[in-house]
């Protein structure tokens, strides 16, 4: 029996959603490729889709992780500024993921997100589209599956490495230039819709 290609879609997918990598979803091999809902597309196509999702969202949020919250190496401060500019362009809120220590049940979901129970922050703030950026890959993947399992939030991942199959849109090697490119696209689309 042929099993249809698994698609990475907003949930709630159920009690225990699978890892997309275990369902045959493969990360793109090329830098100018990305994943949209489990399928490999060009980075430009993924940017179009991400811009649409962010602009049509009721409550879009960016979740910056430790890799962009601390000025720990050259280039991070510029990247953080670019993320703020992206949030402004997309009219998105920002809730940080400052570290990975489990905080249940003490977390204040209004001000913080945690990879071990990210659904609490998404439910509390009624977030319908989110962007992960600057989160170590393992913790991003742990969180993205939990989000798909228990929420209907549309997930977008900016990865500085190879990307995340468990996000609905996944960019690999997402640097300063690419974040600015998405911001410009969103700004342009907003202008067109006026």
């Amino acid at each position, binding site marked *: 029996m042929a099993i249809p290609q698994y698609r990475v879609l907003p949930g709630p997918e159920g009690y225990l959603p699978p890892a997309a990598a275990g369902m045959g979803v493969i990360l793109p091999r090329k830098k100018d490729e990305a994943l949209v809902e489990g399928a490999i597309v060009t980075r430009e196509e993924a940017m179009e889709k991400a811009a649409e999702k962010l602009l049509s969202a009721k409550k879009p949020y960016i979740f910056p992780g430790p890799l962009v919250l601390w000025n*720990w190496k050259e280039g991070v401060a510029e990247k953080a500024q670019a993320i703020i500019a992206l949030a402004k362009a997309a009219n998105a809120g920002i809730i940080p993921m400052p570290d*990975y220590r489990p905080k249940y049940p003490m977390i204040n979901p209004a001000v913080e997100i945690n990879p*071990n129970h990210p659904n609490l922050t998404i439910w509390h703030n009624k977030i319908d589209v989110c962007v992960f950026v600057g989160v170590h*890959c*393992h913790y991003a*993947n742990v969180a993205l*599956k939990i989000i798909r399992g228990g929420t209907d939030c549309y997930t977008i991942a900016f990865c500085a*490495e*190879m990307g995340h199959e468990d996000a609905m849109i996944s960019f690999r090697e997402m640097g300063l230039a690419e974040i600015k490119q998405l911001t410009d696209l969103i700004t342009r689309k907003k202008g067109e819709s006026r």
Partner: protein
Amino acid sequence: MITQKIVDPDYLFFQSERSKMFITGSEAVSEAIKRANVDMAIAYPITPQSESMHLVGDLYAEGYLKDYFRGENEFSVMSAVAGAAMGGVRVFTATGGPGTMRAFEMFPTWAGARLPVVCAFFTRGVNSPLTIQPDTIEMAYMLDTGIMIFHAENAQDLYDMLLKAFVIAEQPEVHIPVGVFADGFFVTHTRDEVSTAPADLKLPAYDPYSSPVPVMDMNNVPLRQMRDPFVMKSNFISYAAHASWQQEVAAAAQRARRYIDHYLGGLVESENPGADIMIVASGTAVSQGRAAIIAAAGEGIDVGLLKIKCLRPFPTEEIKALTRHCKAIIVPEFNRIGWLAREIKAVVEDNSKVVDGPRVFGGMTMPTEMILESIRRCSA
């Protein structure tokens, strides 16, 4: 420290000039580690592994490694190896048999902590009555620890797999341990011709800042104890976090497939894949199978060979495709329980054609005649 030139892994593996050495498997370990730009190695002796880590100790004395020491026992070694990897260094160790058993708790810990440790396992008997002789039973226990498992047929495989294991394990989206297994004595204590890259070349250094989990140094965010105790409470949120974590470790092994294809030339190798009878084996059982195939050809019986190089991730689709046509699958093994036959039965479309064995254990060699007898029965 010895000065070596850092080269691209593809250059070291595929393009550099090769020279032939007539060396033991243990010496092949030393030759691989010499070129692997390993920061640190930690050792504890156990037969048949002792000589390999002794030779790695010699490399330290010669200036190829930054640090080397002997642990208190295997559990201590594997724990220290975990600490070294968490601290962001490239680390190597080796063990085997009862040493594997003694250290066992640490193997799923390595995988769960996403540590790209490379460990050589030289298999031997572990079950009572105790024996130091060849037996691959410990591999059955290791299959589901979360680490990747390569199985070397000979000293050449051992050299190649060890060097390449570092590169595969350290890919940011993979970043789980690799166990390179070789059959004790048959590989470790016999000499073989091994083709090696120049000794003045080495792999690029490990970059711990691309790790999927924060490396534990104080230059790295979030700048504090970062591998906090996991969620261990009795509630669904804790269970879901743990489940997602386990899935992610398994997903990491799946992501390794493309690198195994590139560096090892695939998870399997096949010879004469259209034959009605296929021998499917890993480790030195492959060599015995190859000898039996030659003997069978002398009797006019056409037999193919499927060599499994990588057991985790398991080459499910490759085995399915390469055995779909055949009438019989013979699985020779050096252990009592037949763990490889079980694995193969679980993935082939018609598992009634899997011949359980032949098997030897407790240190026995496997005469080619045993496999040939199975071939004759299948062809009758």
